[in-house]
């Protein structure tokens, strides 16, 4: 974007939560909430971090601002007057937030602020909002009470409230007003960077627009850089310059907002976009609907982590099924492998409106198909045969061989290959194996 030094540079940031089991609390694994993300924010830029609940975006934020200690990686913050620092001899960076000592951290906390989703719970109900805001100044060493008050009153006006609101209490404000106060509190120390974690998702659409435009205005006025976290592509679109799409601890696509919206390269991005409610009653096509939820980061899928939910999941070379059927087939395979098919239950359901004798194996099989939205017959004969065999095994309660059958036949490269980033120009990159034949991007370089 610009040639100047980015204000924030996140390099391969990881945050793993250990999982402990057993009497001795042995560590048996890790929940990889954030698993190696890299991006940068240039001065005055707003970068969006978008993804569903549970994708790790909030953990990324708290790790960046070091409310939690990251497991690995660098967060280089060049704000304040840190510009122009170069790496130390040992490869570490003097501006690396993850290595800041207490004093540096305190300074950093002044220069980088955070805004939270729920404005209501982040205020002490017994403290006037003015005090809540001016407290920040006091903590960071401003002794003069009158000056503090003057600054805060001025700020309250600039976020669209009035100076008289200084002495009022949080409960006297509406949600949107509270978020304005939250903004004032974040701005009072004149930071360079603000990390806003879902700042508008708890607000009405009308208020959202209001707060978003306020943030936009203030950003210009204060020369802020912004990391904006949201699950809502619509919101992202209206405020961000660039956006990084996160899925299960990783960034799957990053690029300038307009380019990304115009030409999404990752299926996940497409799905996020299609979720934006279309305010046109005449267009109710269901579009692509993202099914299921984000898998647990303790045991993420192999290969492309998104393949379990991907509507464009790649078929193995020998088949050419309908994409939907293929996706259902993979889901079914997954359920079988964890014995998630309750034949008894299905049998019982089938009994509703039928007599015992009518429940033949073939009826059961078709019930199972129905249960898992599988077509009554696959277009590929080979595939159909394998599926039928597997269904037979399942009805015979032999999950092992069913799993075996399904897994040996229905495979997707998505679960085998970890996708690498492909560059689509102008810093627009995505990680999807469908682009593997395109020009490989150069290494996602920190020394970009």
């Amino acid at each position, binding site marked *: 974007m610009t040639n100047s030094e980015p204000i924030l540079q996140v390099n391969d940031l990881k945050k793993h939560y250990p999982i402990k089991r057993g009497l001795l609390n042995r560590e048996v694994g890790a929940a990889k909430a954030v698993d190696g993300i890299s991006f940068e924010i240039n001065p005055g830029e707003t970068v969006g971090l978008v993804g569903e*609940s549970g994708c790790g975006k909030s953990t990324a934020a708290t790790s960046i601002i070091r409310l939690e200690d990251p497991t690995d990686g660098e967060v280089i913050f060049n704000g304040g007057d840190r510009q122009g620092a170069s790496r130390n001899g040992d490869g570490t960076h003097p501006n690396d937030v993850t290595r800041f000592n207490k004093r540096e951290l305190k300074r950093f906390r002044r220069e980088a602020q955070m805004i939270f989703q729920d404005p209501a719970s982040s205020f002490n109900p017994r403290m006037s909002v003015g005090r809540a805001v001016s407290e920040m100044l006091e903590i960071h060493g401003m002794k003069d009470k009158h000056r503090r008050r003057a600054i805060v009153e001025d700020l309250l006006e600039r976020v669209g409230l009035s100076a008289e609101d200084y002495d009022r209490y949080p409960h006297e404000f509406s949600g949107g007003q509270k978020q304005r106060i939250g903004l004032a509190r974040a701005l009072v120390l004149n930071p360079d960077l603000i990390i806003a974690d879902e700042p508008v998702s708890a607000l*009405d659409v009308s*208020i959202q*627009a209001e707060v*978003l435009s306020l943030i936009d205005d203030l950003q210009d006025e204060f020369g802020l850089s912004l990391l904006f976290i949201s699950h809502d592509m*619509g919101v992202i679109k209206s405020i961000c310059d660039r956006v990084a799409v996160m899925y299960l601890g990783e960034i799957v696509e990053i690029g300038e907002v307009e380019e990304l919206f115009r030409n999404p390269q990752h299926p996940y991005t497409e799905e996020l976009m299609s979720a934006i409610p279309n*305010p046109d009653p*005449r267009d109710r096509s269901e579009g692509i609907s993202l099914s299921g*939820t984000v898998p647990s980061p303790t045991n993420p899928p192999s290969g492309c982590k998104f393949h379990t939910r991907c509507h464009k999941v790649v078929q193995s070379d020998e088949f050419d099924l309908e994409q939907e059927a293929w996706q259902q087939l993979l889901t079914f395979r997954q359920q079988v492998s964890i014995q998630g098919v309750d034949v008894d239950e299905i049998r019982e359901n089938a009994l509703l409106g039928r007599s015992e004798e009518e429940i033949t194996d073939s009826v059961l099989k078709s019930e199972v198909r129905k249960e898992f939205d599988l077509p009554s017959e696959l277009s590929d004969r080979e595939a159909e045969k394998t599926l039928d065999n597997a269904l037979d095994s399942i009805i015979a309660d032999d999950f092992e061989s069913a799993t075996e059958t399904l897994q040996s036949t229905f495979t997707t490269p998505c679960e085998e290959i970890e996708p690498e980033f492909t560059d689509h120009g102008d810093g627009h990159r995505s990680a999807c194996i469908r682009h593997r034949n395109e020009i490989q991007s150069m290494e996602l370089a920190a020394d970009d």
Partner: protein
Amino acid sequence: MSDEPLLEVENLRTTFDTDQGELIAVDGIDFSIEQGETVCIVGESGSGKTVATESITRIVPIPPGEVDGSVRFKGQGLQSIDDEALRDIRGDQIAHIFQNPQEAMNHVYTIGWQIVEGLKIHQDVTDEEARAKAVELLDRVGIANASARFNDYPHEFSGGQKQRAMIAMALATDPDLLIADEPTTALDVTVQAQILDLLNELQDEFGMSILLVTHDLGVVAQIADRVIVMYSGKVMERGDVYQIFEEPAHPYTQALMKCLPEFGGNAGGIQGTLPDPTDPPDGCRFAPRCEHAASDCTVGDQPAEIEIEPGHLASCIYYQQGYDSSVVQNDDLGTNANERTEAADD
């Protein structure tokens, strides 16, 4: 569809006795819902839309609340029947789902228990039958591996799953009317889309009517047959979904439209805040925030609803005789929306 609407609400007025005086949450509104129809009530937080829906079966706490007016459900007047008879209707023929599935479920009971509870109140079923039905419902609303998850506690469900379970709970008795109060507001956009799809599907399947409350016009566009726009306890505008989206008549509806994120940063939301419900302003409730407000707008009562075209009514004096409706109609939102849709379709 019979001649009589499924639900007919007339002059519904709900007030609360508070320390600050009488709070008028819903100030005499009328609406009806036909069999199989989806009606959306849309408006900002505090506009009274939730209270309006909760007044139908008197879920609002009484006291301090007080509900006046006539509510007829399948021809039966709900306002005069006793609590027990009303309880028989609640959760049986009229079901509710709420905004925050996290809090709308009791955290100490399993999902299954909570579904079965309603079922057993209204239907004479055995435990096994109830359980089977609950599992089937969970399965139907898209909970994978439903029979195993029957015994899970709410905290073991994700937000979207919880809302699905709530829907399953509501559908347990095969209701005629499902009242969904901001069912997607607390959820991720992606989950919201899933839930809306699900509601659409279920409506087709079960043929129930849906009364959906939301502040998000995007949601309305996806699901509504008819729309009622509420503001400060009053109906501002009503009409079918196309009328509302393509020819929004009331300045308030227009302002709401402008708030949709798709309009980018060109609108700063609606300036100002809702009026004090204990002391509503004279004239049109929206007048203090309305860019077209004239002096006539701030006197008397809320203007009567004027029928602009069949089924499309607005409560704005500019549509009364003697005013120039073009002042408020000039807004080019409708066409704008069409253009935008095309752009997004790409």
